[in-house]
């Protein structure tokens, strides 16, 4: 087997085992007397959520502007300019909101998690935890994964509203759509399925990004150079996995 393929399967196995271990410590272990690290989880939620809020809002605001301008061109030709708001809302809720939020999380918080855990691995802090009888997955990984899985959907919701506001600015001040009509069409075209599919996607993406970030952090080898390499691998793998899982989830929601 080519070395690249061997490495790929090694990473896949390692990541799957880490996800299973994380699920055990997050879901089953609390029922077996191992307390969930709630304080650490809230700390991570603050770091991930508050820290990514501004950049998420900026990205989604610009996306809202772009979507409104792009859809206006086509809708003008068929006389459906009032539908701009609805199209922006549906697109960001179903697809662009969860995906771009996850990509922002991968680039900002995921990279930070990998670098932090990688440095802890290199400086023997993870070994120190183990020798104290503390499980690194319980102590380090679960708070980060839960923190990101809680904050992913929250950031997505905020991002969706910011994108809709971006679309509103173009729709009202450039295309001349009545504000009330813009908002009514926006919410009319949003189905319940759009909301829950978007939320499920954002939870899945956040779970993937956080687990990938933690996996590459814990498996760092070779000092500072290794930390840099793992951080790059973490972000690239996260983005590829976000898009691949988005394709799969979209297919599932499309056919059910």
């Amino acid at each position, binding site marked *: 087997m080519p070395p690249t393929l061997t490495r790929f399967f090694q990473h896949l196995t390692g990541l799957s085992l880490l996800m299973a271990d994380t699920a055990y410590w997050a879901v089953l272990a609390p029922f077996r007397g191992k*307390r969930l690290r709630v304080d650490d989880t809230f700390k991570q939620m603050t770091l991930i959520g508050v820290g990514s809020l501004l950049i998420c809002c900026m990205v989604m605001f610009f996306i809202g502007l772009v979507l409104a301008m792009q859809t206006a061109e086509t809708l003008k030709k068929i006389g459906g300019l009032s539908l701009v708001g609805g199209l922006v809302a549906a697109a960001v809720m179903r697809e662009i909101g969860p995906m771009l939020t996850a990509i922002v999380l991968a680039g900002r918080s995921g990279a930070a998690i990998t670098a932090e855990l990688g440095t*802890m691995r290199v*400086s*023997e*802090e993870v*070994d*120190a935890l*183990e*020798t*104290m*009888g*503390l*499980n690194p997955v319980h102590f380090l990984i679960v708070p980060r994964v839960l923190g990101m899985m809680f904050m992913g959907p929250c950031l997505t919701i905020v991002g969706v509203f910011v994108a809709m506001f971006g679309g509103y600015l173009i729709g009202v001040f450039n295309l001349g759509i009545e504000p009330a009509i813009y908002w009514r069409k926006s919410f009319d075209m949003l189905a319940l399925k759009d909301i829950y599919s978007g939320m499920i996607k954002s939870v899945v993406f956040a779970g993937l990004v956080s687990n990938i970030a933690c996996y590459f952090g814990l498996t760092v080898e070779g000092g500072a150079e290794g930390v840099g390499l793992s951080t790059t691998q973490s972000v690239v793998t996260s983005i590829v996995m976000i898009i691949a899982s988005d394709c799969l989830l979209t297919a599932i929601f499309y056919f059910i």
Partner: protein
Amino acid sequence: MISSASPFNSDQPRNGPLGPDDIIAVEDLAKIYGGRRVLDGVSFRVKRGDILVIMGGSGCGKSTLLRQIIGLQHPEEGRIWIEGREITQLTEGEFNEVRKKFGVLFQSGALFNSMTVGENVALPIREHFPNQPDMTVDIMVKMKLSLVELTKFAELKPAEISGGMKKRAALARALALDPKLLFCDEPTAGLDPIRVTEFDDLTLRLCRELGVTAVVVTHDMTSAFRIATRMILLHKGKIMAEGTPDEIRANTNPLVSDFINGKAETEVREDAEGYLRAILGEDN
């Protein structure tokens, strides 16, 4: 004294090789990396109250040996007993109970940079005794920090204290649960000679006062002879010599005397391939 035979007599019961005075026993330990035996048939015992120093050149397997004993790696062959438990047979949960009986001081200190010195020392206490009131934990932390003379630095982060203070803070954390056993990996690495002497005196004092048995990995000969009650010299994954510091000094094996006197090896490795062959034991 050249160690050749296993310290485990054939008439000894296989399930309990620890004598009444022994706290650690290692039997025929082997660690294999990529088909190469980094540790090969290593056997020794540690008696209660001893300070055993494991010495050897770079790449001889001394840190690997320590990692097997503290459970960070698993040996391919051989068995290890700590406090009457065969740790090579234990589950992770069972081994975590054994881990409460020992403390580990890592080469870099391995203090958590996101926590203060006091929080670092408090961590094992809070995690293993979650019902202890904060006041009790604070008193315990102050006691541990006073042992290493760092009481006034409890509120500082590791990045704000010197290298020597980091080592002492890490020692305080290693002693947080009043362990019977202390493992130190290159405890004096990176310290100036005065700090090395201070740290050695501290280790000796704490081991005597607290009745702690210590296993110290080092290649600092001055420090090793200052603190050791017994010594092991590893060479290419095998025990080349074992005994008291006086026995090691009196050893007639040229490799042993060259190592403790810091003489260069007769055969200088000038290329990478030769160096790798040498540390992997393939040049014989």
